[in-house]
């Protein structure tokens, strides 16, 4: 009576090339082309954020030129509606945006993990209560809740992080709970029970390592959510607009009627940065998917083989007439 579902863990050796442990998974991930693209981009952005004092030619807050100047040799990305240097704002803004994005990503994944694992493993009342709790947070419309909370809490980065985590943990919790429900029924878990293993060790040492790929995917997804929501909140003016981030740059651009002024350089760069970071993170998710979904992996293999031997028909088993090396 074999178990037919593998709970989406990439460790079954029945599907093509086995990925023995989740650590090996991470190593393999680093060699996937999509992952490399994503990682390189992210690293570039992080470097930009870290070295912003060295990269920025001007103080981003200062008025250093005439307003709404187009990009030039002095101001690579032109000036804002207030006469500040856009390029300097961009590199400094990366710090805030990336920090909020990744902090919220990590915190909401952690919170979701704790709730999801516990509610998935303990049946009955505990699961029932936590599940209802999770569902409530899933159902409440995100943006209105975000706005409501942000508007009456004191403005500041801590508030933003708290608010975004508060609205972002429920989805990972739900995902992890489902995975836990599936893995809990596996024979190796029962075997640990029979060996006398206690619940905490079973959950964290036996089951959690099997969920590593899912946790990483959720983390990336949470980061994308956080960066986008942060930008959205800032754009709507619910954050401290004197702090420079990509989102507040958009707020100021809109405030200064950038579109009317045809000052594309004030909103396009921050928007593009947000999009690129999301794109890079998405690439990592795709790479993870490919690694963990055996069918995606073998599809690529098959296409490569067919091309190599010039096989066109895919309906019937092809017959090769030349000997193969």
């Amino acid at each position, binding site marked *: 009576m074999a178990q037919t579902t593998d709970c989406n863990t990439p460790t079954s050796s029945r599907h093509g*090339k086995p990925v023995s442990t989740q650590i090996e998974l991470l190593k393999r991930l680093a060699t996937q082309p999509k992952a490399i693209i994503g990682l390189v981009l992210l690293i570039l952005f992080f470097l930009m954020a870290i070295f912003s004092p060295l990269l920025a030619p001007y103080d981003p807050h200062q008025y250093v030129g005439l307003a709404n100047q187009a990009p030039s040799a002095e101001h690579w990305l032109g000036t804002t509606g207030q006469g500040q240097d856009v390029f300097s704002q961009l590199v400094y803004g990366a710090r805030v945006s990336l920090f909020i994005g990744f902090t919220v990503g990590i915190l909401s994944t952690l919170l979701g993990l704790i709730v999801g694992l516990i509610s998935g493993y303990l049946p009955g009342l505990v699961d029932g209560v936590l599940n209802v709790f999770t569902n409530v947070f899933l159902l409440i419309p995100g943006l209105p809740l975000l706005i409501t909370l942000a508007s009456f809490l004191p403005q500041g980065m801590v508030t933003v992080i708290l608010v975004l985590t508060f609205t972002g943990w429920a989805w990972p919790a739900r995902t992890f709970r489902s995975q836990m429900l599936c893995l809990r029924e596996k024979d190796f878990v029962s075997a640990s029970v029979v060996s006398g293993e206690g619940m905490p060790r079973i959950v964290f040492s036996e089951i959690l390592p099997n969920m590593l790929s899912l946790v990483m995917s959720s983390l990336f997804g949470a980061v994308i959510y956080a960066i986008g929501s942060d930008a959205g909140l800032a754009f709507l003016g619910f954050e401290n607009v004197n702090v420079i981030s990509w989102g507040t740059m958009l707020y100021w651009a809109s405030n200064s009627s950038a579109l009317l002024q045809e000052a594309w350089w004030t909103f396009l760069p921050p928007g593009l940065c947000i999009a690129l970071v999301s794109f890079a993170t998405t690439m990592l998710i795709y790479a993870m998917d490919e690694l963990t979904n055996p069918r995606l992996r073998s599809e690529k*293999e*098959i296409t490569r*083989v*067919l091309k*190599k*031997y010039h*096989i066109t*028909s*895919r*309906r*019937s*088993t*092809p*017959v*090769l007439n030349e*000997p*193969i*090396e």
Partner: protein
Amino acid sequence: MNPSNESTLDIRDLRVNYLTTRGIVKAVNGVSFQVKPGEVVGLAGESGSGKSTIAHALLRILHPPAVISGGQALFGGQDIMKMDDAELEAFRWQKISIVFQSAMNALNPVMKIRDQLADVMLHHGIDKAEAARRSVELFNLVGIEPARLDSYPHQLSGGMRQRAVIAIALALNPPMLIMDEPTTALDVVVQKDILEQIDLLRKQLGFSILFITHDLSLLVEISTHICIMYAGEIVEKAPARRLFERPQHPYTLGLMNSFPSICGDKQRLTGIPGSPPDLVTPPSGCKFHPRCPRAMNICSRVAPVTTQLTPDHSVACHLIGNGGQQ
């Protein structure tokens, strides 16, 4: 419909490879045997022996990265390996059809059995009324009440589902049936019922069967001839009773030493040590030599040729070339 002499399946030196990133897997490495009209030929082997691959290859339903890399499969004067898609369409199900291991893999869970049965027939040009009439006839043949035609697969028991799959395989009255582990997933009592039914049908309709399984004791009871496969090659071929009474190849002997009996003296059986080989880097010489209790020096260097002991009993083993065993 009487099967003509043209419905002999003649496989000659068939080779099937899987082209994987790890290397080329020689799943079937030069297999030759025949299935004559009315015969039941058993193909016995364990995992990695290539028996299932042959079944799928004969209908050309293997997916890339599998390729047929050599040999012929002649049926009714045509070589299956040379047919194009159009010829294969006409060939499949009308000349040779197949019963798979798990009925739930073969049946569509959201379609009624009636529709699945009709589907096959309509696709081959039979009109609706005739298909409906034939469906009832087929169900009677396999021993299910025709009223169950309107059930979904999950509403039938395991045994009935497998009978339904057999009915679908017989829809166009093919002269030959391939059965790939048809009863492995069933309980032993149901298995016996189904096998008796298949025997009855065979006597009634006259088709030949290529029966694939790992259960050698089953094959000895139901086949006329048996081929023992190991790591993609046939190591011994003989009529069923003769194979049981006078097995020659050490692997055959080892296999027989793996089935405890329900009667007679209780003996200590040993099975075979080790495990089936990796087909990307198979052992040199005779592929069985690492596990063979009687391996000689030559066995690891040279692959054995097939020796014909009697016109219908052949073995591929160095021991046989040099005096052999009794």
